[in-house]
């Protein structure tokens, strides 16, 4: 695949991620998502954009419900 074609494919994938993980109808939910056997509160796919070595940092301590501070830190 040419460099331009690769960039187009990457941009399409980014646009998909942007939509699927963060938009659309929100019904909430009550099932835990997990990545690499690490239970997380709902974060959607955004965890894939974080280096794998940071995954243990993303597990919420008891009582914390908003991971945005962790991801921004």
């Amino acid at each position, binding site marked *: 695949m040419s460099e331009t074609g690769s960039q*187009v494919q990457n941009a399409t994938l*980014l646009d998909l991620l942007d939509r699927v993980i963060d*938009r659309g109808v929100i019904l909430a939910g009550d099932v835990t998502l997990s990545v690499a056997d690490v239970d997380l509160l709902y974060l959607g796919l955004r965890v894939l954009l974080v280096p794998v070595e940071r995954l243990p940092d993303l597990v919420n301590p008891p009582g914390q419900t908003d991971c945005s501070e962790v991801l921004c830190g």
Partner: protein
Amino acid sequence: MGSACCVYAITAGSTPLPAASRGAPASLTTVAWRELAAVTAPMSDDRAPVTMRAVLHHEAIVEAVRKEGPALPVRFGTMFRDEASVASAIAARYEPLVAELDRLGDKVELSLTALWGEPLSDDGRVVSQLEGPLADEQSGAGYLLARAAEERHHDAMKEHARTLAHELDQVLRRFACGRRVRLAPTPRVAMRAAYLLDASRVGDFQSAFESARRSVRELRVLMTGPWPPYSFVRQTDAHGATAMVGGIAGVAQRLADAMRERLG
């Protein structure tokens, strides 16, 4: 198989499920509440995987469902312990969901990303006549002057992006029934926009886009889609009030913008 349910889309109760022959999983089912239904699939346990494959699978199902009739895309990773919980969630948002399905169910969106075509300096800044000399950042005063200059540069870029976005928008808006525009979200990205339109107008929109992109030479403009209308769904809480999805939404946006930066 466990009783947990993954939700993909909201449809009218009369809309059929896509056939397995069209690529939809045989395990797809619906959870109905009055005139609405949630398209769901059972999950093997209550720890759902977050993988690229799962994301692509989610989108494939949403698009397959929309080929059968109007449908609203549900955010990835929406899972409930059982079908009764799904029905309760629909019931709590019934009227807004009916209104949204009527408004958006048969619409699509196209995404526009405009990258600056100008060369960038090593620290990612656009090198142009808009940028003045950098102050000495070793001193406190120098640091503040440098930050002030950076702020002025960012404002100038944003204004320039606004002008270019307006030029593009003037051409494209007549095909759209809604749009979302973000100007200069990062130093490399001049504009990101989503246009909502009837599926029948996609061809006209794409033709107009090809003509318009040639007139904005400072930008590299990329269009993707059509997508289900994720960007135009109004979020409501269980009481029907419009909720602001900030916080984590903002974080995801910044991460997505950072990924775009690397595309150059």
